[in-house]
């Protein structure tokens, strides 16, 4: 009898050994792996494959973004808004930094740039030490989390006209745009993120979020070139209170606004010099909003 018991206990042990990994892999089939793992990304001449990005995601990203890409990694609980934004939930397929219009999916290049650039004032570092291929594979892996890519095409990148010459008149015109579209309500009249609405802001998931402070030396999250700043307010930051102003600001006016925003920033710039020369004053929140160019 004891012999038989030993035999069965051994068989059960082997069965347990075989069953445990099966149970583990069962957890990974919450979504349709077969289809999603075929996700690709195209950046320049490179093609990224989701499967190839899995290992790097597990090494570098999973602590914040979580195994399931839902932004619930082990560190998520310790990132407390508004000082630290929660990690991106890739399953939602909603991204702040895009070259495409508000509400549309970003391009693969947008996601690649985000991984490369990182996000200032967040726990997301620059991953430019990874090879281009590794970053492209990661883009494909990020895409595999959301069903949006299976059903939608990425938006078309907005057209950014050539940057005009900075002039004092353009900076003043930029101030008018700043006043008209009421940027100051969140960003403050001097770009210090202290506008009357600043303390009330929340993202689409109801979490507190702070407007960008132009004056503290930090870099805009979606890039710090003039083109990047142009793109930010023309496409908006999806998932946040920062809307797209593509319908409210004409392309030429947009450059004026870029020049005006530069006057807030710490770095030395021609815009700052010109603003100082002409004694440019901040907008007056109580003054009537200036009319859009071309309007009477």
């Amino acid at each position: 009898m004891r012999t038989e018991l030993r035999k069965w206990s051994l068989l059960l042990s082997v069965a347990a050994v075989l069953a445990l990994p099966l149970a583990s892999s069962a957890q990974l089939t919450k979504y349709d792996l077969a289809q999603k793992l075929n996700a690709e990304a195209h950046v320049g001449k490179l093609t990224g494959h989701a499967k190839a990005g899995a290992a790097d995601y597990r090494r570098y990203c999973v602590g914040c973004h979580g195994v399931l890409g839902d932004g619930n990694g082990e560190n998520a609980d310790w990132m407390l808004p508004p000082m630290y934004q929660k990690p991106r939930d890739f399953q939602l397929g909603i991204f702040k930094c895009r070259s495409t219009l508000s509400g549309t999916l970003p391009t693969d290049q947008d996601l690649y740039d985000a991984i490369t650039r990182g996000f200032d004032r967040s726990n997301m570092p620059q991953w430019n030490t990874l090879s281009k291929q590794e970053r492209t594979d990661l883009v494909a892996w990020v895409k595999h989390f959301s069903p949006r890519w299976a059903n939608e095409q990425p938006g078309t990148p907005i057209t950014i006209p050539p940057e005009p010459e900075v002039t004092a008149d353009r900076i003043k015109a930029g101030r008018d745009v700043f006043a008209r579209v009421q940027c100051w309500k969140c960003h403050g009249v001097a770009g210090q993120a202290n506008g009357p609405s600043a303390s009330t802001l929340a993202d689409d998931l109801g979490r507190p979020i702070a407007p960008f402070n132009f004056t503290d030396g930090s870099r805009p999250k979606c890039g710090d070139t003039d083109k990047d700043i142009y793109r930010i307010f023309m496409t908006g930051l999806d998932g946040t209170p920062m809307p797209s102003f593509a319908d409210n600001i004409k392309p030429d006016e947009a450059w004026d606004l870029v020049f005006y925003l530069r006057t807030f920033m710490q770095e030395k710039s021609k815009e700052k010099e010109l603003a100082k020369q002409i004694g440019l004053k901040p907008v007056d929140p109580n003054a009537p909003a200036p009319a859009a160019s071309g309007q009477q």
Partner: protein
Amino acid sequence: MHVKKRLPRSNVARFATSLSAVSLILVSIILTCSQPANALPAFARKYGLRCSACHESWPMLNYFGQKFKDNGYQLMNDRDAPIWQNPGYWPVVFRITPIWHRVSVGKVQVDTYTAGAADGGQAVQRVSSSGFDLSGLDFHTGGTLEKNISFYLLPSSDPTGAFHFEQVFVRFDNIFHSSWLNFKLGRFELDNLLSEKRILTLTGNGGVYQTYHFIPQGDGNIFGQIGDNQLGIEYLGHSADDRTRISASLVSSSDGNVNLSTTANAYTGFFAGSQAFDAGRMGVQRLGFYAMAGEASTYYLTQGGVPLGGSGIGNKSFSREGFVGQFYFGPHVGLTVVTQHGTDNAWFGQGYGNAEATDGNGGTTCGGPALSPGCPPNNFPGTALPTGSQAPSWNGVTFEGHYIYSPQLIFISRYEVEKMSQQANGPGYTPGPQGATNGFSTQMPSNLGNISTYTIGFRYNPFMTSRAGLAWHNEYNWLHQDGTGPANLATGALTNLNTSEILMGLDFDF
């Protein structure tokens, strides 16, 4: 009823069967329940990144970790300064490794006994010893004092608890907003791409890079050991993505010893540069070089015959130079190659130079008159090199391969070979008036002191989080050195020495 007749089995066999089953289950549970992939937890805790983000396998850095280090332990995300941390955050980590190991030395000269008493005879035999043991204890503390100003402090003890400061420095980064302008001052590891302080192996001979510490037999120069932390100042410059790196250090030729030791007044320069290349799916490859050129004293003043601390003069030169390659063959396989050509001045070859106090780095204690037993030879004014003296030189290479199954499991293999190309005692060697100052009175065999060693092992991290690290470490090292065994008792001929060590331990930090 047919009853199967079972063969009788011993209790041992039954126990083995049960143990196998239980082991299988345990291994399966560990492999199954382990979280997706384990650093200096102080940094990991600060930034919320898992160990695997910065470490190929803790403690060896990957490129991202190297960039983090090169940026002064900063992610460069405008949240690096301590003002952004919870006031309770204190960047301290301890690391220690309880181990079991077995060390076997192939040839040891021992006393012989007859009828229960020493008979005055000698024999040579293998000595093996095994048991449970401890590594030393490291208290790592490091981080930023302010944006672009960082520090590192590492009080470190040997297994008995005797402490020294293994690493202490303050660094200033991104001066004038340029990643090309970074400086640090203190005691630090030289800018070795294959970092010995981040070595993945723990045995006595395998836990260091022989290429970084090779010294010809009888040589008195302990100062060219690029694996030891040194006291000095370092300039580092790197591109924003860390693909290009250059560094230059000026260090005291004291092998990191404090208190302006005997060899004060001598300096060494260390220079390194490397360039990384993007090789598609193969990963990022890096090629670099290093060169160390310096001087150290061979002569120190005495007072009543006793060496006078900090009085080293009579500086002689030495150099170390080589190439480094860090290659990846996809995400799982890596190979690092380090070469070295080393040369010491002929005075060092004759045993002059090592006048350091005991420091744990191979220095010599000398509390008595110079030239008395236990004291290093002194290059008194008027001393001449013995006839047949030569500048010793050698070549070495280290190959270290990694198979990274996952961030939690890494297999390590290493092969190192160091070969003399010119011995200190050349043809026609005749000792001078001070005698055989390097311990050898005749011409040295061409292979004397040559080393070949290999190490294999693996480290398994059962969990990986951004809070703490634990690795189950297993390793085997074998080392062969020519001519360093006990002399043949019958003929007096030099013999070769083999040593080996097997080690298992739990390497943890918190």
